[in-house]
Structure formats: structure tokens, C-alpha cells
């Protein structure tokens, strides 16, 4: 029976080890139903059908993984994204200060190094994605907190706030992209840059809402006014160098329809920020 057909069995063994040698496959298949002790996991693999299934399944899984890797890189350029997260604490601190008080800063040029922009770590004028991402998440949490203090909190509201803010962000970036296309501006602003610039307003929104929580409506309005003006100045000064032509960016008055269009475009992008800031926060502070 089972014992006699197994080769290499130690006579002192009390049980059949069906995991051992490959030559015992057929009998091992019949024998494994009865509880063999010792290696319960191994009996699964000694069954040829389940081996096939496992091999097929694992190859399918690795194929799926390759597919995901290939396509993910098409939609989300991971290496480009990594550039925007190459930040350190000093940069983040200075940038936050700049977002709230941009009036003293003199040099707004982004420095380059052999045609590629320098990482944000080394240049305070470079856009990054850490602050917008953290700002977005903090905004959602602060919104939840604000609604909670007014006893209007449910977990669904967090999801609603998050999705509405995200939708407004996407729409803003799309409108800016469309207008850049229509005005035919030759600029090296990428989509991710635009997302970064649009995300900087969350900092001002958070400061406004927190001030509203601590000091009431007057505190909210005062800080929001300050932050709106700051972000307006910040955007104008940053975008001016990227959108306007060289001469106009220097401050020289250059006449011509195209330059006027570009100036209007810069001003409208900058003016959209305070509008969004007010729109997304006024219902949080009562």
C-alpha cells in the first residue's frame, strides 16, 4: 500500500512524507488526502494539478505586474514626480514664509543647471509638490475639524470636501492650460508646474480657516485678506518671469497685442487664486 510504494522512506518514520521525492507523484496524489503529518503545506505542492495552477497563477500575476508598471509610467511619470519631491526642511520653511510674505524677496528667477532646472532643495524659486500635497490633505482635515466644532461633521462630508476641492483644482489647471494654448505662449511651464502653483493657495486657506477657528469671523476675514493679497503678489511675480517675454519681464513697457494678452493672462491666473480661496473656505467658518 502506501508504505511499500514509497522509496527512501525511513523505517522509523511514523507517517508518509509525500513531499519528499518526485518519483512518487501518482501514489502521493492518492495518499495525500489522508492526513499526513509534518508538512501539511507541502502536500499541496506535490499535487501536479495545483502545481500547474500555481505556476499559471504566478505567471499571470507577474504579467499583470509588468502591465501595471508599463502603463503606470505612461500616466504618472514617476521620475519627473520625484524631482518635485526633492525638498528639505529649510526649503519648505522658506517657501511657506514666501507664500505668506512675498514682499521682501528680490530674485524670482529659477536657476538652471545645464538646461535642467535645479532641484527645489537648492533653489527656493523652483516649484515643488510637497507643499501642495500636504496643503491639500491638511485642508481636508482642518475642514473636518471646523465642521466638527460646529457639530456638522459626518465622515461623508470629508469625502465631499476632498472631492470638490480636487475637482476645482483640476478645472483650474485645465482652464489655465487651455488659455496658455490659446494665447500661444512659449513657456516651459509643465502641467505639473501648474498643479504645483495652483496648490500653493491651500496654505493661505488653511491659515485663514485656523484663524477663523481661533478668533472668529473677523480673524478669518483679516487673515484671508492678507493671504489673498500675498498669493496674488506671489503668483504675479512668479508667472511674470515664465509667461511674459524677456523684455517685458524686466519691467520695460513693451507694446503689442501679444504682450498685453500675456499680461492679462498672468493677472487673471493670479486673480483666480483669491477667488478660489474664498469660495472654498467661507462655508467652513460661521
Amino acid at each position: 500500500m502506501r508504505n511499500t510504494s514509497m522509496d527512501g522512506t525511513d523505517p522509523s518514520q511514523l507517517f508518509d512524507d509525500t513531499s519528499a521525492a518526485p518519483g512518487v507523484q501518482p501514489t502521493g496524489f492518492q495518499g495525500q488526502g489522508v492526513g499526513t503529518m509534518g508538512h501539511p503545506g507541502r502536500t499541496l505542492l506535490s499535487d501536479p494539478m495545483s502545481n500547474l495552477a500555481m505556476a499559471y497563477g504566478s505567471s499571470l500575476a507577474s504579467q499583470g505586474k509588468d502591465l501595471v508598471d508599463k502603463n503606470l509610467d505612461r500616466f504618472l511619470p514617476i521620475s519627473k514626480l520625484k524631482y518635485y519631491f526633492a525638498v528639505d526642511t529649510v526649503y519648505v520653511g522658506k517657501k511657506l514664509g514666501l507664500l505668506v510674505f512675498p514682499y521682501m524677496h528680490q530674485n524670482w528667477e529659477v536657476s538652471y543647471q545645464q538646461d535642467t532646472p535645479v532641484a527645489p532643495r537648492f533653489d527656493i524659486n523652483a516649484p515643488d509638490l510637497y507643499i501642495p500635497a500636504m496643503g491639500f490633505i491638511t485642508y481636508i482635515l482642518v475642514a473636518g475639524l471646523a465642521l466638527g466644532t460646529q457639530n456638522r461633521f459626518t465622515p461623508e462630508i470629508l469625502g465631499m470636501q476632498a472631492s470638490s476641492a480636487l475637482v476645482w483644482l483640476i478645472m483650474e489647471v485645465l482652464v489655465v492650460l487651455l488659455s496658455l494654448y490659446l494665447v500661444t505662449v512659449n513657456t516651459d511651464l509643465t502641467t505639473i508646474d501648474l498643479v504645483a502653483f495652483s496648490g500653493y493657495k491651500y496654505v493661505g486657506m488653511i491659515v485663514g480657516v485656523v484663524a477663523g477657528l481661533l478668533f472668529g469671523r473677523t480673524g478669518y476675514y483679516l487673515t484671508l485678506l492678507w493671504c489673498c493679497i500675498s498669493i496674488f503678489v506671489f503668483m504675479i511675480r512668479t508667472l511674470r518671469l515664465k509667461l511674459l517675454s524677456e523684455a517685458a519681464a524686466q519691467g520695460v513697457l513693451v507694446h503689442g497685442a501679444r504682450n498685453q494678452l500675456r499680461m492679462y493672462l498672468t493677472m487673471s491666473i493670479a486673480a483666480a487664486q483669491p477667488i478660489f480661496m474664498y469660495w472654498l473656505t467661507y462655508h467652513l467658518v460661521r
Partner: protein
Amino acid sequence: MSGFDNFNTDFYQSSYSVDDQGQPAGYGHSNTEDPYKQGQYDYSQPMGYSAPGMMQPQQPYTGQIYQPTPAFTPSPTQSMYGSSFDDEPPLLEELGINFDHIWQKTLTVLHPMKAADGNIMNETDLAGPMVFCLAFGATLLLTGKIQFGYVYGISVIGCLGMYCLLNLMSMTGVSFGCVASVLGYCLLPMILLASFGIIFSLQGMFGIIIAATIIGWCSFSASKIFISALAMDGQQLLVAYPCALLYGVFALISVF
């Protein structure tokens, strides 16, 4: 994309070697890491680090561990654990639960001021974090809040977010298991907060101060472990902030 493979293997296989930073007690397995060069998966690693202690008496099966075998072999050409019952590794070792390591990591979390060692996160151990999550849920249960679902959901979302962020911010990638493991271990002070909540209500000023202290403690420990393991310089506060947001949400559950 070969570059993406780095994200899946544990980070200690990258070129940055933390092994050179002295030999801490109990972690002398740096010399066993050379055989682990080609795409292993987590299954074989927990056996690896306890193998040096077992090297002498149990020759037959430890030799098998260092072979880079694929996940499921179509035929069991040789048995992984020898052919007799005596050669089997103990159950805890087979499961990868090493109480000594769990204790070491817990002590690292509990002493936030002591510098962390980069080696300790070399094996992704989810047994400790599981215990801590369940203990957190149990202490919340003792205060009358049945919120295992929220704890689970928030921890999954938080781990995903930290995984994406750390992969984007660090030079070497991290695996998801490592992130989950670190975040789970640093949940330990939260259990303390929840147990305070059993004794007295946390909704006063005193409770808010304690909650803020414990959030700071958790996120400081987590960021300390992350930056020592991933060699990120000048970014500790940047890593601590999202951890603080995550633990803040846990504290919100405990307090309200």
C-alpha cells in the same frame, strides 16, 4: 520597468549599505545579506536572520535557505526542510515571528530621544504591528467605541499615502511592508492615549495637551526610524508632518 523593481524589494538591498554602521547587539546578520542579491521575496527572509544562530546544529535545512528559489516550484524537486521531522524549524521561526526583534523595535519606539539604528527595519515584520492595532482597537472598545472599521480604513489609507510619499521623496525606495511595519510599531503610544481615555475623558484642555504630546511622540519616532533607515537627510520634519496627520486622525478617534 526595471526601475520599479526597486520599489518592491526591501530597501536594504540597495547600494547604500547600513551594515557599515557598527554592529548593534542582536543584529549581527549583516554578513548574511550577500546571498540575498537576486529578487527574493519576504518569505525567505525571516528564516534568514535567525539562521546564523542555528547554523551549527542544523546543517541540512539552513543550506536550503540561501538558495534563491522561486515562489512556487512546479514540482517539489527537493524538500525545503529535509526529510525528517527533526529537521523542521520551530513554528515561530517558520512564521517569522522573532520576539527578540519585536522587543528591540518596541524599545526603539519607546525611547524617541535615542538615535535609531538603520538595520532594524531590514526585515518587514507585521506581527508586532498587528498586535498593536488590535490592542488599540481593544482599548477603544473598553471606552465604549466600537470602531475597528475606522482604525483599519485609516491605517490602510495612511500606509498607502506614506508609501507613495516616501517612495517619491527618498533616493532608495521602500516596500509597502516596511512602511506598514514602522507605522504599526509607532502606534504604541496611541494605545497609551486610548487607555488614558478609559480613566478620564480626554475632551478637556488637559486631554488635548496629552493628545498633542502623544501625537508628537508617535510621529517623531516614526520619522526617526524612516530617515535612519532610508538615509534621508534634512527631511525629518517633512516626514514627521504626514505621520503627525495620520496619528492625529487616530487621536481624533480616541478623543471624540
